């Protein structure tokens, strides 16, 4: 398994535990962490845990199951950087209640989503002889 994909899954587990801890802290004392904690928790779990787990597994299995190599390793590497830059910025924006920071984080996170989507489409897509 490619190191990048293992990193995706490892980071997803870390986000899962971090997101859980934030929710637990909020449950125990709602005033301990400032800002929009439920939204931060929800996005850490969805974008950080679930989606990064899917990124790691998907980048490994979809090329194999489709019978062709990944369309772009470089794009997948940038997807890793982008996903892991965008989410912390978004979360920081919610906790600090700074909307423009949330927007920037959202754009960077979305860039990772688009890179994954395009890379997978071009990998799985049937085209040309033998495809």
């Amino acid at each position, binding site marked *: *398994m490619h190191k990048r994909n293992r990193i995706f899954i*490892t980071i997803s587990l870390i986000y899962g535990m971090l997101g*859980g801890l934030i929710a637990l802290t909020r449950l125990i004392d709602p005033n301990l962490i400032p800002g929009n904690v439920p939204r931060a928790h929800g996005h850490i779990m969805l974008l950080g845990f679930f989606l990064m787990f899917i990124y790691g597994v998907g980048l490994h299995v979809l090329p194999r199951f489709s019978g062709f190599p990944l369309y772009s390793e470089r794009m997948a590497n940038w997807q890793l950087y982008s996903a892991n830059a965008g989410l912390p910025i978004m979360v920081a924006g919610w906790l600090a209640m700074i909307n423009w920071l949330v927007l920037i984080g959202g754009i960077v996170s979305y860039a990772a989503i688009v890179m994954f989507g395009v890379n997978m489409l071009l990998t799985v897509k049937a085209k040309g002889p033998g495809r």
Partner: protein
Amino acid sequence: MKIELLVSDWCQSCHQAEKIWREVVEEKDVEFAVLDMSQPEGKALVSQLRLKTIPALVIDGELKGIGVQSLAEARSLVEAAPSKAKSDMQHAGISLSTDNRYFAIASMIYLMLSGMGLIINGALLSDGPARPVALHLFTVGFVLSLIYALGAHMLPRFTGNPIQMGKWPWAQMGLLHLGLLGYVAGYLVGLHVIIVAGGVFIWLSLFVFSLRIWPVLWPKASNNDSKIIDLVSQ
């Protein structure tokens, strides 16, 4: 000693052969590879040995058997290999292990439970006080259980590394169900302390899962015992 078992997902007797060989390689310190005939490594072996039937057993590069060996036959073939120290670390097979089957079953039950909101509220998530209940039945009950089932099955196969078994998957499962049901019950009866306890148990189940998955993704450099290479691990 290097043992290669040539199989295919569609071959029913291959599952039986793999089950027997996995049992044997847990006892012996051997290198064990399960190769799918549709993948490059399997194709190379088919071509090299001109194999026409699966499951085929190759030991140290020589064809030693066709079809399913009995447990006694398999043990006698690896008699010369040294015994392996007992460990909870196990390799994943083609089929789901019992714990992963239960995680998958639980996942489907939680999906049906969370989907009841569609009938009760006309939406998956209502805006009422029960919103966290439906939300967590879906995300924790359905999605997380499915991640547990598939992750613990696929990642050891993708990486070729063993996963912590024994009591650990059952501890993870107990914590998940206790946590989620506690969390839901806490919301429904309005007891905050039960909600918190439920959340702690869910978090602990994720922690146990992470501890089990970590050595699968990042094995110790010295861990070279009974390496299993799977069709999708390369």
